[in-house]
């Protein structure tokens, strides 16, 4: 009996502990929070910072379709609000004044900078995001062509929120996938150049059907936008930065008409720096494994001789793409977005130290050798094309 009483007393004490777990000063109720899912930063015409946030509607009341409120607009399950200020912190505090709930940044997975703001520099605005204890180091960073606010105001395509759409797109890694942590690392690296994926809006007649997607990338130098590059150059950048995970490569073989498409299974890039006297050289060694997914040429792909030729062609294609990216980076932008500077520092710390002031000169004249090694593992479900019986 006594033992039982003891046990029930202990259980009671433990249960009463749970009442205290909510905290007193820092107690947070979900229905008191305005969960920010996406942030957009723009520069207004008066040179003020414009902060736009996409807040998830967590209350049970569903919004009326297509209704506009005075402070913001409703799109599906979220509310868009925006304010201006001199600094991000100021804009945030102004935003808080307009809200009945406390802003919560813990689920802010997407941060978008407008093109105009990016030209002025994004470094100082990152400061707030890094210092704030709630923001995520894993938040995905984008630069939008046009204003960031516009991207936020779009309706989601498939997922519940636009933020989820973008997040999943970034994860698929058909374009770059850069997090806040990675952006900061690039910005404080020895080369001080960074690359961020760009967002463009697929405009449809009905605004409700327009949606944003990742297309190309932006190059930042010392935190300022230096230029934009298109999708195929971005692919070259991704090859060189070892960030390519999947994708489709289509080539047209030299001695036959038509196209062959490959699906990338895996790819890795080694960066090998080499210094000899005045010669600074980077060797990019790329190993990739592909499957064939389409063949409209006259080649019979069940013949291993053709596969060897195709591997060579694929290697040439990779080299071409990377060289295109290198030309843009070295000659047009003079921005070391491949972090070659750090590669040199890692291998030759002393020589690097003596030459670090000359790096931008060295980089433009840097000798980059691309060595590609492509392997085609299997021809897919069909050997000979069913539709082309005359393949040889």
């Amino acid at each position, binding site marked *: 009996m006594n033992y039982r009483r003891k046990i029930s007393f202990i259980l009671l004490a433990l249960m009463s502990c749970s009442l205290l777990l909510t905290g007193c000063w820092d107690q947070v109720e979900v229905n008191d929070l305005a969960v920010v899912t996406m942030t957009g930063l723009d520069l207004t015409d008066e040179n003020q910072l414009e902060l736009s946030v996409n807040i998830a509607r967590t209350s049970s009341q569903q919004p009326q379709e297509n209704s506009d409120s005075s402070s913001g607009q409703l799109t599906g399950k979220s509310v868009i609000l925006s304010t201006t200020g001199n600094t991000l912190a100021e804009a945030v505090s102004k935003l808080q004044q307009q809200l009945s709930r406390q802003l919560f940044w813990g689920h802010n997975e997407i941060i978008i900078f407008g093109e105009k703001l990016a030209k002025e520099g994004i470094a100082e605005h990152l400061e707030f995001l890094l210092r704030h204890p709630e923001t*995520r180091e*894993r938040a995905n960073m984008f630069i939008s062509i046009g204003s960031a606010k516009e991207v936020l105001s779009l309706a989601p395509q498939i997922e519940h929120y636009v933020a989820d759409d973008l997040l999943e797109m970034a*994860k698929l890694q058909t374009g770059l996938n850069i997090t806040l942590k990675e952006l900061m690392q690039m910005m*404080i690296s020895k080369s001080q150049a960074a690359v961020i994926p760009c967002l463009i809006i697929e405009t449809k007649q009905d605004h409700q059907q327009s949606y944003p997607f990742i297309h190309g990338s932006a190059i930042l130098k010392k935190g300022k936008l230096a230029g934009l590059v298109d999708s195929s150059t971005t692919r070259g950048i991704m090859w060189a930065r070892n960030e390519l995970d999947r994708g489709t490569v289509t080539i047209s073989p030299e001695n036959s008409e038509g196209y062959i498409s490959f699906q990338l299974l895996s790819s890795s890039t080694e960066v090998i720096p080499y210094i000899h006297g005045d010669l600074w050289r980077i060797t990019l060694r790329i190993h990739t494994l592909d499957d064939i997914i389409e063949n409209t040429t006259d080649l019979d792909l069940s013949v291993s001789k053709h596969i060897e030729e195709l591997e060579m062609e694929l290697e040439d294609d990779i080299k071409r793409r990377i060289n295109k990216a290198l030309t843009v980076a070295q000659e047009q932008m003079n921005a070391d977005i491949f972090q070659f500077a750090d590669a040199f520092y890692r291998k030759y710390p002393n020589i690097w130290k003596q030459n670090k002031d000359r790096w931008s000169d060295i980089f433009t004249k840097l000798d980059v050798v691309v060595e590609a090694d492509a392997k085609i593992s299997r021809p897919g479900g069909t050997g000979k094309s069913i539709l082309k019986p005359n393949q040889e």
Partner: protein
Amino acid sequence: MIEKGRISASQLGKILYMAIIPTSLLTTPAITFKYAKQDLWLSPIWAISGFITVFIVLRIYRMYPSENIIQIMERIGRRIPGKIISGIYLLFILYVNGVIVREYSEFVVSSFLHTTPIVVISGLMVLVCAMAVRGGLEIVGRFAELFLPIFITLFLFNIIPIIADLQWSNLFPIFGEGIRPSIEGAFVLQTWFSEMIIASFFLPFVADHHNAKKTLSRSLLAIMVTLSVSNLATLLLLGELTGNYSYPFLILARYINISNFINHLESLYMIIWVLGAFVKICVFYYVTVLVAAQWMKLSNYQPIVYPLGLLLLLFSQWVAPNTQVLTEAIAGPVTLAMITMFVIIPALLLCIVWIVNRLHN
């Protein structure tokens, strides 16, 4: 004897590990990175003061197996000077514990409970620790034994999911600027390694004393490895950013993302932190209480546990006006003071004891 409880040598090893690791895990990557840069993971290997302290503790233990270093100081220093020295030590240990309590609460307030008054957080922790310390040595030992597996499991849980995100290139160049930066970075770490001196206060109560040497060196080694691994993981994830964060190891937990649904794991680190800080504060609290009771020649230390807890709480508020001062103090004056009090003076004591014994013979 004032303490009737006994612990095993393996419990002592666990006490030492849990008394040193928690706070160093939190702050060392940032402080070490300042000097050692990408060699910060090598710094814990220069645990010189750890080896010296363990050597001193074991030597003194062999000569006086039933006394701790402060009792020996009183014995050597005779009545008045001995009392003064041990009084200074009493205050210093109380001060060090105050710093620990403050570190614990600063982290909780700045990263999780922003609006909670710091006194409440420190106060609750001191209260819980006071209850444990009143239970005596065996309770403290059992807590260390109970929490160590949880601590290590969670520590690994913090590191293993992040492995996919680590960039091994951050490691290079190793010894890019020679061996010096890593040694400079190790300077601050000596604060934690010199804390091995607390072994001296527990050794007289160890039942299987022939295992003492083994257990001390094992826990020192475990501490070195743990610090090295945590510094390495932080470096490989954050690279040059390591120095910019106040609590880099926390970022590891925040960065974990397993297939998009196991993420936002900072509460995991919070568990590590509260468990670790609890044992650490308990151990130092117990040492303070023990030294105070011996200093005042009390027959029982239990009555002074709560009053000293109040003092401890006050000390935790007094040590620094804000976080910056606290961090600067830990990186500079506190390190020097701890090396002096926990390494240099005990080394002198060992020499004196040795000479006195020679003269007697």
